């Protein structure tokens, strides 16, 4: 039976049978780029967002203040430029620009990773800044009041809480990245969308190929969002806690469970 004689379901099954290997490979590439770039983007975002929340200390000299201003300006420009232009064009700009102007031939992988993580970083920078600002100022005061330095306050108290606050946004970014890696097909990255284009080009079955690919994208993003939810609830810790009875130094006796919902031990 030739493909033109098949019905919709048969064509989808045919695509799955014939191209399962390349679809899986495409999905794996998409996921690898999305995960690596979201993580790198978070690192960039935390660094940039952190610098942008630094207020100059009252005792800082003119040089330090000026330096901070210049750094902030550059970072701001980075955020605005990368948020303000399409990633597809950035990909073309960086990948082809590097080779034609500077003679640097970025590998397909390194180009893909640089573009997506730098892009994610630009968005994350604003998210992190918001996350830091959303932490109650009292937390900072509490930390400073027991003698913590600015740095310790950030690392031990503010950032962990900011990270928890922006977890939903990080999840958002991961899901956006899973889908948006498709623009990398412009520089020839063989990810899931590129695979879709090859299949549909080879078989002329756009509808069926699109359906199959969409299902795969959805499975990937849905699984990720569930996993992230689980991580979030793990970060929150249990809603109950253990009452430490008798000798708390030795912890010899057992712990009693305190059910905060019931308001008593059980």
């Amino acid at each position, binding site marked *: 039976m030739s493909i033109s004689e098949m019905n919709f379901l048969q064509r989808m099954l045919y695509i799955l049978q014939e191209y399962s290997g390349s679809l899986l490979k495409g999905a794996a590439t998409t996921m690898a780029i999305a995960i690596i770039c979201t993580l790198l983007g978070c690192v960039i975002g935390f660094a940039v967002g952190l610098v942008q929340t630094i207020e100059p200390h*009252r005792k800082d000299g003119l040089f330090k203040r000026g330096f901070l201003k210049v750094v902030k300006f550059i970072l701001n420009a980075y955020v605005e430029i990368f948020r303000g232009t399409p990633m597809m064009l950035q990909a073309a700009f960086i990948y082809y620009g590097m080779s034609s102007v500077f003679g640097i031939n970025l590998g397909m992988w390194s180009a893909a990773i640089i573009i997506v993580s730098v892009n994610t970083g630009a968005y994350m920078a604003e998210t992190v800044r918001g996350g830091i600002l959303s932490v109650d100022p*009292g937390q900072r*005061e*509490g930390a400073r009041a027991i*003698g913590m330095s600015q740095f310790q306050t950030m690392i031990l108290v503010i950032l962990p809480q900011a990270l928890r606050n922006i977890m939903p946004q990080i999840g958002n970014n991961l899901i956006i990245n899973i889908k948006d890696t498709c623009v990398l097909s412009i520089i020839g990255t063989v990810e899931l969308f590129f695979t879709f284009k090859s299949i549909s080009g080879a078989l002329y079955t756009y509808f069926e190929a699109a359906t199959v690919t969409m299902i795969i994208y959805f499975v990937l993003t849905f699984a990720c969002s569930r996993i992230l939810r689980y991580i979030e609830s793990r970060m929150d810790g249990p809603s109950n*806690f253990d009452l430490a009875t008798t000798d708390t130094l030795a912890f010899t006796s057992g712990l009693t469970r305190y059910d*905060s919902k019931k308001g008593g031990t059980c």
Partner: protein
Amino acid sequence: METILKVEHLVKTFGTNEVLKDIDFNVSKGDVISIIGSSGSGKSTLLRCINMLEEATGGRILYHGKDILRGEIDEDTYRTKVGMVFQSFNLFNNYTVLENCIIGQTHVLKRGKEEAKAKALKYLSKVGMELYINAKPRQLSGGQKQRVAIARALAMDPEILLFDEPTSALDPEMVGEVLDVMMNLAKSGMTMLVVTHEMAFARSVSNRVVYMADGRIEEEGSPEEIFSSPKSQRTKDFLSRFNDK
């Protein structure tokens, strides 16, 4: 008694608004000083200036003779000596009760884990919160949070404890448990500076009462002097509002 803290001609302005005008007073070892006054009189700002959460605009704050405003002592080191208890508790939400009381000791004072834990447990028992060491702040009531906050401050072995309206954010039935802890602290000889609206506490626990109005110290004296025979008319007016109740 040895003077720990000497505040001289302290001025604090926010823009054109002068919140503290020429404040002078001393804190000696073992003092329990209550600062009373209506809202907006500058009580909290005074406390925050002493802990350098706000930068004083003028004057001097001498800690054992060293001017903290001129950086004669490291700001962070100074803060470990002057503990602060806030109206809104400010416990670290991302740590358990025990960790809240340990983290400052291990990271700021560089104490060992075991020593820090023993100390934390000692003070948590002192405030009656030793059963709750595994709880997160969000699982506690306001009064419990404030008692943990006091234990956290105590674990740093401060020389003075500053209390910024420690019971103002609490439900009436929780005020007592926090005041009890503070009363016991005062009895044990802790030097305390308490901004409060609890007149009974100011009267029975403190050895000195400072009445502030419009950014100035209007009157200062023993609880007996302030509450029974205030000299200033403003003090009389302020206190009469409490006596009416």
